[in-house]
């Protein structure tokens, strides 16, 4: 079982004079139990890739396969869950509970099943159902609204979960909650996280893909990427700050050190060993 995109290409406004090629020759594979991180600057094609993986856009080059069948809007329905970047702007119902239950209801669950599943999903995203279920989705703070939107996706138990910048705009607690939520989701689903910053999910990812100008600039493992921070520059990204400090220090001291994302470990190797002046 896997969601597999092979040498995908996509052009917006294909065949018109406004045609804009957003993706070319990009591959992505994720199986339940895996987390794949897709990095890239604004405009690198990340969101287009997610829309194709969710069956919302049909790739015009390459092959898209979902658990052995052709990936399209129909086969993706109820199997692939997509959390948009501004997830909270998708809320629409009168109450939080109705909003979250909409997905499962639409997939054919009975009202009771849908409400039970919605209640459970609210709990999973850290919102107490008793407090939140009857509130209007439009009276929530940004972070709460984001979590309600995600509960709406979790409620239909997707086998693949795609998240576009899931932590943008969230506070520290919200980001931590979101991170553990997606890591937990990995137990049952294949998770793809798209982000423009590497700091948050790099340590947990099974694989990393970096997009640049619509193409695949790098397909690697987090371990490899951390070990060679210059790779970030080569693909037009900023290295995480902690790596950047180690790299700058190493070049000032002309000494190499084992790179790490962990601040405590980095402090140890920067102060002891790891190259003296």
């Amino acid at each position, binding site marked *: 079982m896997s969601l597999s995109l092979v040498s995908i290409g996509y052009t917006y406004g294909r065949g018109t004079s406004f045609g804009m090629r957003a993706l070319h020759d990009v591959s992505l594979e994720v199986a339940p139990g895996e987390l794949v991180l897709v990095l890239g600057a604004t405009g690198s094609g990340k969101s287009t890739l997610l829309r194709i993986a969710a069956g919302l856009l049909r790739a015009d080059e390459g092959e898209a396969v979902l658990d052995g069948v052709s990936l399209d809007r129909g086969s993706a329905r109820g199997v692939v869950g997509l959390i948009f970047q501004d997830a909270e702007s998708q809320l629409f119902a009168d109450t939080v509970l109705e909003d979250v239950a909409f997905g499962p209801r639409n997939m054919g669950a009975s009202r009771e099943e849908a409400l039970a599943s919605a209640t459970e999903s609210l709990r999973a995203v850290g919102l107490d159902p008793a407090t939140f279920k009857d509130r209007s989705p439009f009276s929530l703070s940004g972070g709460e609204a984001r979590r309600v939107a995600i509960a709406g996706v979790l409620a239909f138990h997707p086998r693949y979960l795609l998240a576009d910048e899931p932590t943008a705009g969230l506070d520290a607690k919200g980001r931590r909650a979101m991170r553990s939520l997606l890591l937990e989701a990995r137990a049952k689903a294949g998770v793809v996280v798209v982000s423009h910053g590497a700091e948050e999910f790099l340590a947990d990812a099974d694989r990393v893909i970096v997009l640049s100008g619509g193409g695949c600039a790098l397909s690697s493992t987090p371990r490899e990427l951390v070990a060679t921070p210059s790779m970030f520059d080569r693909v037009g990204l900023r290295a995480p700050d902690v790596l950047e400090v180690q790299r700058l220090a190493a070049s000032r001291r002309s000494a190499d050190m084992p790179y790490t994302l962990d601040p405590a470990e980095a402090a140890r190797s920067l*102060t002891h060993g790891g190259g003296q002046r």
Partner: protein
Amino acid sequence: MSHSYTTGAHSVPAVRDVSLDIGPAEYVAVLGANGSGKSTLVRLINGLLLPSSGEITVNGIGTHDEAGIGTIRESVSVVFQNPDDQIVATSVEDDVAFGPENLGLARDVIRERVAWALESVGLCGLERREPHLLSGGQKQRLAIAGALAMQPHWLVLDEPTSMLDPVGRVEVLDVLEAVADSGRSVIHVTHDLSEAMRASRALVMHEGCIVFDGSPGDLLCATDRLESWSLELSPLLTLAEELRDHGIVVPRAASTPAAIVEALCR
């Protein structure tokens, strides 16, 4: 002042009994969890919302004073999170000119203001560019230029970097610092402690109240309370703390990798 949002039977207090004075030429970072009342505070400051109780005055004019609200909006310019939501024109220069044009200023005054605003945010040379062809960081700097063209006394920004990639983020932060250095007040709402380190004053909101008002450096010392306010040291600030534990003197103001390496290699 206080403010509650009311929908049906629910009334949610968003800002509770807050008193606050922000002077000229201050760079104030407003921190706090999602839902702590930061955005409500921003909307109260320029009269987009009126307080349920208490009052807000800008240069002596109350936001409840309908005759004065125009003057207030001229002296308080707000930039929101999503640059796409606040771009109105089809070219960069027209977009920046939109505000001053609405003030009915003379053509050459408008032209001067547009040129100055674009220079302030580093977008010179892109005057004729269509805004949708700009990068995220450029778009947000365009929104800031539009706000600056009103020559406000206070520039208020509600999480201006949260939708930007790391490169765009640094571009915007550098612009804010330059605006503050030029003598205007900047009120910068953010979740991010390392962004707040650039400010001269930090406010923390928690459940609608202001629970900290002091220097950003002192805020870092309140380690035990940061957690309960849902603030967190970034990996970089954590690294700086760890280095201090190892006896390295790292200035509180060091909030970039280069500044920390400078301290390390001294």
